[in-house]
Every structure is written in C-alpha cells, then in structure tokens.
C-alpha cells in the first residue's frame, strides 16, 4: 500500500444482505489519479462504488479516506471529502441548474442551508469549469442528457471533494459529450489533485483516460494495473466473456465474428484501402480471404477479425514466395478477386503478381457483388 493514498481499500468484501458480490478487493488511489473500474454488466462495479461512497456498508475489510477509516467518519466529513455522480436521473421540481449545483455546497452551509456569497461564487466557478455556466437559470428538467451530466459534474465539483466518484458518467452521452466529461475529469485530476474513481463501459476511453484500471470479474478484482498492462493480448475478450466478435485492445476496436466458411472472394489488400471492403463483404454475409498482408499493416487487425483466411507476411519483410504460393492456392478456389491496392512498392511487389494472375484468369472485378 502506498503512502499518502487518498483512498485505500484493504481486502474489501462488498455486497447486499451479507451476500458477497465482490471479495478481496485491495487498491489505493493517489491524489490526481484516475482509477477506472471495468467489467461485464452485473459484475459488481456499482456495488463497489456504493460501498466506497458509504451508501452501503462493507461486509468485511477496510476503506480509508485520506488516512481515516471510513466507518469512523461522520456523514458530513465524508461529504467534504467525497462527492458522487450516479447514473440515476434526478427528478427535480422547479429547480434551475444553478440550484442543483448549489446543493453541492450543502456540507458547508449552516443550519438552514442558505448559500453565502462565497458559496454562490464557487457554484458559478464550478459551472464555468464544467462548461455549464450558460445553463445557470435554465430549469434542470429542460436540458439534454449531455448538459445534465455537465451540471451534475459541476455540482460534484462545487462540493470541493478530494475524491470524485462517478458511476458510468459517460453512459447515454454522445461521443462529443463523452470526451468532454472525461477531459474535464483529467483536468480536475491534474489541476486540483482530485482523485477520481469511476466505472466505465467504454473500454477505448477507459484505456485512454485512466491511470489505473481495476477489472471486476467473477466476484473479485481479477486484475489491477495500468492500462498498458490490462489492455493487452486477449484479456479483454476473456474479461467480458466475449462470444460474438473480437476486441482489439490496441485500437479499442470491436469487430463482429468472422464468417468461417470457405472464402468466395479473395481481396488483395494493404495500406488500409481494404477495410471498407472487408466490412462490406462481412455485412453482406460473403466469406472472403485477404492477402497478402503484412502484420504491421493498418488493415491487418480488421482483416484478421473479419476474414475467413488471411495470408500474412512478417512485418518489414518483402512478401515471400511461400506466402504468394499460399495466396495463389486460395485464390484458385475463390470465385472472384478484388484488388484494392493501387500502389506496389518493394515490400508488396508480389501482390502485383497476384493481381495479374487474377486478371488473366478473368476473376478480377470491381467491387460490385
């Protein structure tokens, strides 16, 4: 466990009614770090977040917040250290967005909860930071999902926490708002040294915006580590028990399952031009082969995911006669050949032979299946 951790969990077990959902969870988050929980639906990410925010008591294990045990802190003290943003929609009545953000000042106001000038200043600042300043006088019920999330984030900021806890903050948002929210979180973490703990379903974004990733699976934290460790190999497919399609963690690219029948069309690809063709053939339900592609080629991951067969060549090597032979034999069995390569260089010179061979055999066609 690290020194100065703002949030620390030690062999934590969480669940409802003594039924354990996630067990043996230990981690620590430093100020300015973004920690993201990923895992399949129903794996217990929200339960973990509810326990950390003291909405649910831990079944066993310890949580400490800025060095103090969570159970020893009063509600008001927790409120000054941690603010939350949950997925559930607020049903407000006659409240402007400014009023909603003002509720974030709750732990700091007096008995009757009247906002001071200082509080109002912080409310305005928080809304400006979250890009929601123009909504100050707008009724909270009349804004879009994306704006609502910005206002709720402003509310959480106005609470001036050391830890920001968010449950799927980007769900239901368009891609522009998703990036906006996550960029804001990154900015808050960097500039205000706020520790962020969140759950995300967008793996590609989790990979790009997290300092630490916790993978919740089968009742435990299966892996904890930096994104580079988590998003490698086939682990993500295993984590989500993916049975349909594949996930390429390098680009955050999800593709459907390949059509694994004998190929009817051979695509001579390379350089990225083939990607649209692969997707279109897959969509039309036509099994195809692709080649000869270098393992370093831009379109290799897509071809690999969608094609029945891919003839490959090692990166940075000229295409070997062995690979060409393999491609020829597959091409023989295909009805048509599509060539999407326009430029032949030293490395893919052999693909020109494939094209000429196909033309001679009368198989070459433009892509009009």
């Amino acid at each position, binding site marked *: 466990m690290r020194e100065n951790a703002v949030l620390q969990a030690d062999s934590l077990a969480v669940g409802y009614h003594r039924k354990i959902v996630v067990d043996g969870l230990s981690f620590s988050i430093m100020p300015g770090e973004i920690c993201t929980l990923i895992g399949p639906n129903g794996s217990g990410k929200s339960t973990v977040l*509810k326990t950390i925010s003291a909405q649910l008591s831990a079944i066993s294990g310890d949580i400490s917040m800025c060095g103090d045990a969570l159970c020893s802190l009063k*509600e008001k003290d927790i409120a000054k250290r941690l*603010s939350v943003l*949950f997925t*559930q929609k607020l049903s407000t009545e006659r409240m402007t967005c400014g009023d909603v953000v003002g*509720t974030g000042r709750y*732990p700091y106001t007096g*008995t*009757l909860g009247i906002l001071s000038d200082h509080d109002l200043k912080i409310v305005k600042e928080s809304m400006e930071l979250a890009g929601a300043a123009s909504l100050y006088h707008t009724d909270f019920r*009349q804004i879009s999902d994306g704006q609502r999330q910005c206002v709720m984030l402003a509310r959480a900021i106005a609470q001036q926490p050391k830890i920001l806890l968010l449950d799927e903050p980007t769900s239901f948002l368009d891609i522009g708002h998703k990036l906006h929210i996550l960029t804001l979180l990154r900015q808050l973490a960097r500039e205000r040294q706020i520790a962020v703990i969140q759950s995300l379903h967008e793996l590609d974004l989790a990979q790009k915006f997290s300092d630490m990733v916790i993978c919740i699976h089968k009742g435990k934290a299966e892996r904890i580590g930096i994104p580079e460790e988590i998003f490698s190999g086939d682990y993500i497919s295993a984590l989500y028990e993916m049975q349909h399609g594949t996930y390429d963690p390098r680009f955050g690219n999800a593709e459907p399952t390949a059509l694994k029948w004998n190929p009817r069309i051979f695509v001579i690809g390379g350089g990225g031009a083939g990607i649209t063709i692969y997707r279109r053939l897959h969509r039309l339900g036509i099994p195809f082969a692709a080649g000869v592609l270098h393992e370093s080629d831009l379109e290799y991951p897509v071809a690999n995911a969608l094609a029945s067969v891919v003839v490959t060549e090692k990166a940075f090597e000229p295409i070997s006669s062995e690979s060409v032979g393999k491609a020829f034999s597959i091409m023989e069995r295909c009805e048509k050949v599509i060539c999407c390569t326009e430029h032949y260089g030293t490395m893919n010179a052999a693909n020109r032979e494939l094209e000429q061979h196909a033309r001679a055999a009368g198989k070459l066609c433009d892509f009009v299946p």
Partner: protein
Amino acid sequence: MEKQRMKRTVICYFFLCITAGLLFYFSLICGSSSIPPAAVYGLLKGTLHEGASYRILFDIRLPRTISAFLLGGGLSVSGYLLQSFFRNPIAGPFVLGISSGAKLTIALLMIFALKNSFVIQSGMMVSAAFIGAILCMLMVLLFSGKVRSGAQLVIAGVMIGYICNALTDLAVTFADDANIVNLHNWSKGSFSGTEWKDVRIMTILILAASVCAFLLSKPISAYQLGESYAANMGVHLPIFRIFLILLSSILSACVTAFAGPISFVGIAVPHLMKGLFGTARPLIMIPAVFLGGGVFCMGCDLIARTLFAPQELSVSTVTAVFGAPVVIFVMLYRANERSTI
C-alpha cells in the same frame, strides 16, 4: 434573477398575510348572526367584555377561526412533508390513509369513553389520533418498501383508508345511539365547537411541529435530489426519515383529533404554493405552505358555514370542491412536463 426571485417571494408572502388578515376579519363578522364590525374592534381593543356579541365572538368564532388557521397550516405542512418523503406529488395524510387511521382510534376512544362514562381530555384525543396515524404510517411504509411506483403507493394508502373507515363504521354501528350523533358530526370534518383549551394545545403542538419541520428544510432540500445524493451530502438518512415520519404523523393526528379528517388540503395547498412562489425550496415552502394552508382552511370554513346559513356544510365538502381540481391539474401538468423532456 436572484433579485427577481426574492421579490416574488416577498410579494407572495405579503399577499398571503393580507389574505389571512382579511379572512380572519370576515370569519369574525360573518355568520348566522351578523356581528357589527364595531364589536370586532371592541373585542380587539379589549373594550367589549360581555353581551351576546362578546360570547359569539370570543367563545365561538375566535377559537374556531384560530383553529381553522392552525389546523389548516398543520395539515398542509404534513402533506408537504409526506410529498417530500415519498417523492410522490399526490401523497397526503388523507390519501395515504393516515387521517383515517387517526379517525379509527379516536372513534374507538370516544365509544370506550362514553361506555365507561368518563370525559375525554383533548390531550387523550391527540394521543389516540397519534397512535392511529403512526400505525397507518408504518403500514404505508411497509408497502412503500415493496412497491416501486408512486401510483401503487397511493392505491395502498387509499385501501388502508377504506379499511380504517370500514372498521370505524363497524365500531359506530355497535355503539349506543346517543354517541353516534357526536361521532358522526366529527367524522365528517368540522372546525365547529372548538374551545379555548383545545386552541391552546393545538397551538403548542402545531407550531412546535411546524418549526421543527422548518428546521429540517436543509435536509429536505437534499432529500429532494434522491436518497443517494442526500446521503452523500451528509444527511443521516435513518434519523432524518424518523423525524419526517414523526412530524407528519403528529401534524395530521393533531388535525384529525380536533377537526376530524379533512380531505385534499394536504395535497392541494403545497402545489398551489409551489405554483404561486415558483419554487419548491423547503426553506421558503414550509412557512408558505403553513400560511397558505391556514388561509385555505379559513376560507373553506367561512364558506362552509355561511353559504347555506344557518345550515352548515362539513368543511371537507368545501375543501374537496377546491382541492380535488388542483390534484387533477397537477397530474395533467406533470404529464405534459414529462412529454416535453
């Protein structure tokens, strides 16, 4: 904008106070025997000490008007608390069966007292009503844990109310004839026959409970955002819930004990006030709802006893006529509002 809101609040409070004053005045001079305004001034100045006018004003109309104001205020605050607690716009002591529960225990107490021929003190009435109210409240709470939708909760409350009313009728059927008249008048809801000693007790109880509710306006405002947010803002939820339940039960029990079950005030007044003030902030709403409820009930009582004088209507009849349309309007307005989002 902030200044505009402030201005609106001040104007609305001023309007409510003026209306309350006017209704108070008319409640004193209007009635089956008309009292000259001079007598009212005399009473207020302390120069009127005796005579028929003094008796009517001081012993009948003044306590009645004060109790209409206080009980109306208490009932409305109770409705506001229940609406906040259940997050249900049509929750109220009458709809949720809490008034009926209080009515049942009071009926039982009355029958028991008359059988054993002892005189009921108003303190006993309030205690009995409180027991009935809290029992029904607990039943509603039990249901609220099981049902997810607000409509189901209201149906459960209405059913509890029916059961309590049926039991009350059953008890009344087996009571002596002489008791029934007394019980019958009361069970329809009326401010008539309020005595000064009742006024004293209700003033203490209702004002104390309403002030407590006002002091809770900060956690109520947090609770309006939802339980998980309230918890994160530092509200101690279990204690807060107990406070809300106790306060709303005390208020509706007190009203039922002194005036019988009065319908629709608890639902209608909070909505009217939210519309008038243009906010739902508890800090502003709780005093406003109290004032508004007082004005509403004074007005309804005035109508109930002057419209067909000397025949008196039950006050519930009048409150239903004015209150029920508000409920319908609220439902329509809410439905529209959802569709615009």
